């Protein structure tokens, strides 16, 4: 009985050590069964130490040692698998063997087999995918119970002389079985607690990170500017609960929310040496206020006492700016926010990159549009001028009108910046263009325009219809000897706007009905898709020698989006 208490006493010291160790990061790998080499190595080292510790803490009885060595061996096996269990048991066993005594061989063998037993149980549960069960303290208790019974049997079998061994077992069996089983259960419980705390921590970390990601998504796609960064900073400020949040580009503060917002004004040039260092070296800087002093570079009375500065990296690790998290002087930086900060920086960097990519795409379409506008074909221009010079001779008033139309047409073409216009405006543009063409081909071109009035206020991307009409003349009716007819029609059909430009030349077919589409038409199609979605756009169809039809479809009463 006395032995039970003294053994339990030793066990307490042993467990206090285990508890203290559990507070260190060294213990972290034990809470996850990753099966990686580093995990196994940690298991081996830690539990070998506990195994040896168990021997030292043991009580010498009759030339043998009553001990808690089995806890280390079995736990090593349970958490590390058969190989680790075997290795831990062997290490503990060899150590025990070196201490001598009549049970030395028996103890060495039994410790090794106990480690192996733990490992086999580990294997059993792993194979069945019941990883969580391994962390159950009750399981540890049962396994230890079996292990101790096994040890006692081995001592009886191996240790000589048998009478002495029997004597010993009678004395130590009960105390050791109880102490080891309870000890293992408690040890496992410490590990389990640690694991639970860690998982809760990760869960709250993940949920915070996800919330921020969700709330900020798409904001920076609109561009890395003051307005958008202000929104993002506000969200981060709300979600992390830090003292203040700031976002800078390479030169100046773009957004600042929180304590000290009165003097950290957006637009202020960066003066903090930490920030400059973060930008120049593309490195994370944590001025905690103790080891690395932090003092606001803008105001001596600033309450902020610590700052985490993380560079925002673009392509090829080029620094786009920084994100800064601050805490006031009397508050500590939570480690959660420290690691969250890095993730945030990565998230924002990606968003900025994405927005730049988008900008470039838009620029590209703008460049193409400009090209299209500049494409005002010189043939048209010179022929128009030639026509006008002839008309001047015959009908000066009409010539004057033609000049007005021509200038209207060019003025419209020069307005690069307008992205969308009402159909009515687009028709005016077409009208100006057609007046010239009708004068040129006076004797062999007829144009009928028939557009539903409800459509007139519908917005369309600029240069949607005009290129189609131009195309119909240039590649259609102008190649006909006589009687060119162009119909421009527009109507509503199932909530969709349908616009058609039809000519009676049918010259737009290539062999096997493949449709040729010039740059101009491609841009028209692309812009419609950009504005209204992939399922809309331009479709050309052609019946050789009789008609070519350019047909546009898009939703009614929807203003174009996606272009600024």
């Amino acid at each position, binding site marked *: 009985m006395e032995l039970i208490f003294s053994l339990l006493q030793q066990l307490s010291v042993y467990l206090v050590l285990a508890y203290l160790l559990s507070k260190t990061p060294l213990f972290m790998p034990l809470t996850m069964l990753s099966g990686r080499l580093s995990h196994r190595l940690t298991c081996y080292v830690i539990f070998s130490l506990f195994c040896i510790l168990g021997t030292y803490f043991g009580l010498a009885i009759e030339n043998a040692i009553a001990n808690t060595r089995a806890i280390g061996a079995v736990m090593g096996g349970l958490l590390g698998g058969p190989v680790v269990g075997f290795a831990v048991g062997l290490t503990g066993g060899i150590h025990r063997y070196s201490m001598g005594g009549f049970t030395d061989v028996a103890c060495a063998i039994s410790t090794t087999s106990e480690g192996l037993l733990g490992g086999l149980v580990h294997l059993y549960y792993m194979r069945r995918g019941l990883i969580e069960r391994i962390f159950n303290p009750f399981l540890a208790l049962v396994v230890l119970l079996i292990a101790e019974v096994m040890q006692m049997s081995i001592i009886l079998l191996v240790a000589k002389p048998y009478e002495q061994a029997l004597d010993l077992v009678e004395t130590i069996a009960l105390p050791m079985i109880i102490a080891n089983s309870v000890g293992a259960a408690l040890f496992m419980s410490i590990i389990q607690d640690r694991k639970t705390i860690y998982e809760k921590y990760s869960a709250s970390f993940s949920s915070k990170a996800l919330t921020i990601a969700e709330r900020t998504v798409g904001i920076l796609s609109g561009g890395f500017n003051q307005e958008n960064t202000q929104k993002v900073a506000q969200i981060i400020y709300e979600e992390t609960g830090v003292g203040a949040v700031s976002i800078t580009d390479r030169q100046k503060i773009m957004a600042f929310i929180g304590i000290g917002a009165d003097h950290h004004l957006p637009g202020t040039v960066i003066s903090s040496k930490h920030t400059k260092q973060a930008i120049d070296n593309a490195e994370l800087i944590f001025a905690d206020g103790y080891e690395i002093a932090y003092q606001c570079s803008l105001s001596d009375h600033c309450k902020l006492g610590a700052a985490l500065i993380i560079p925002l990296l673009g392509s090829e690790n080029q620094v786009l700016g920084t994100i800064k998290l601050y805490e006031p002087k009397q508050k500590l930086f939570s480690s959660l926010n420290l690691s969250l900060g890095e993730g945030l920086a990565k998230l924002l960097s990606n968003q900025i990159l994405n927005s730049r990519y988008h900008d470039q795409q838009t620029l590209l379409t703008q460049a193409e549009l400009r090209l299209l506008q500049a494409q005002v074909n010189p043939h048209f221009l010179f022929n128009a001028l030639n*026509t006008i010079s*002839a008309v001047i001779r015959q009908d000066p008033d009409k010539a004057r009108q033609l000049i007005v139309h021509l200038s209207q047409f060019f003025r419209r073409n020069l307005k690069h910046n307008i992205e969308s216009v009402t159909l009515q405006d687009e028709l005016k543009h077409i009208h100006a263009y057609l007046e010239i063409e009708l004068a*040129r081909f006076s004797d062999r071109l007829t144009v009928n325009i028939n557009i539903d009035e409800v459509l007139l206020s519908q917005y369309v991307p600029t240069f949607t219809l005009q290129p189609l009409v131009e195309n119909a003349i240039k590649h259609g009716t102008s190649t006909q000897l006589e009687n060119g007819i162009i119909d421009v029609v527009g109507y509503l059909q199932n909530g969709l706007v349908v616009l058609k430009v039809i000519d009676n030349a049918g010259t737009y077919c290539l062999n096997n009905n493949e449709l040729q589409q010039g740059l101009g038409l491609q841009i028209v199609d692309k812009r419609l898709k950009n504005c209204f979605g992939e399922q809309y756009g331009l479709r050309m169809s052609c019946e050789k020698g009789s008609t070519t039809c350019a047909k546009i479809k898009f939703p009614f009463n929807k203003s174009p989006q996606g272009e600024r």
Partner: protein
Amino acid sequence: MLKAIVIDDEQYARDELIALIAEQQEVTIEVVASCNNAIEGLKKVNQLKPDLIFLDIQMPQINGIEMLGMLDPETMPKVIFVTAFDEYALQAFEDNAFDYILKPVEPCRLRKTLKRVKCKMQQENYQVLTDKPLSLIPCAGFNRYLLLKPSEIEVAYSDQSGVHIISQQSDKGAAETSCSLSLKILEEKTELLRCHRQYLINPNAIREIKLLDNALAEIVTVSGAVAPVSRRYLKMLKDRFQLH
């Protein structure tokens, strides 16, 4: 005094050019016809034999350069090309020192060009522009223009009234139209083979060659048209088809 024809597909452009020609005093020019397309132009040129034509490049169906290729080099009038904008054509005119004017036409440029024309009225060789095979053969149908692909032609022959073409019409069998191109041009610039002084035959349309007495022969085409083969050309035909 020079006879001239203006060929341009735009009414105002023709009017303007004719007015400018009338205004200048460099060369006395009488505009004998004004045509609104190449087919009409071809007909008038063959009919009126002008000394000079003002020829627009961009015209429907058959452009100015193509039309030039359909004119007989021996009776080729002097040509002044007129264009609003056509980089490739302009390059060719520059390279070969052909006369051209740009639309809108500057009166002084027109005077200069006409002065040059007056000084060297000898024939020019436009072959660099025109040596391409013909892709469309303009024919005059009843009250309409007919543009035939050379492959559709079975037989072309000439008589006092001009050149006639027998073509294979998809369903109606053979049809006959008149054509303003000479047999010589057709022979040079299409696949048609000479089988008689007055006949050309499309070798792909031959169904039968009937040998007659006196080393003469007769060709029957796919759609049943008949063309005589003279002694002189029979040998060439036999060579061509290896009928020995």
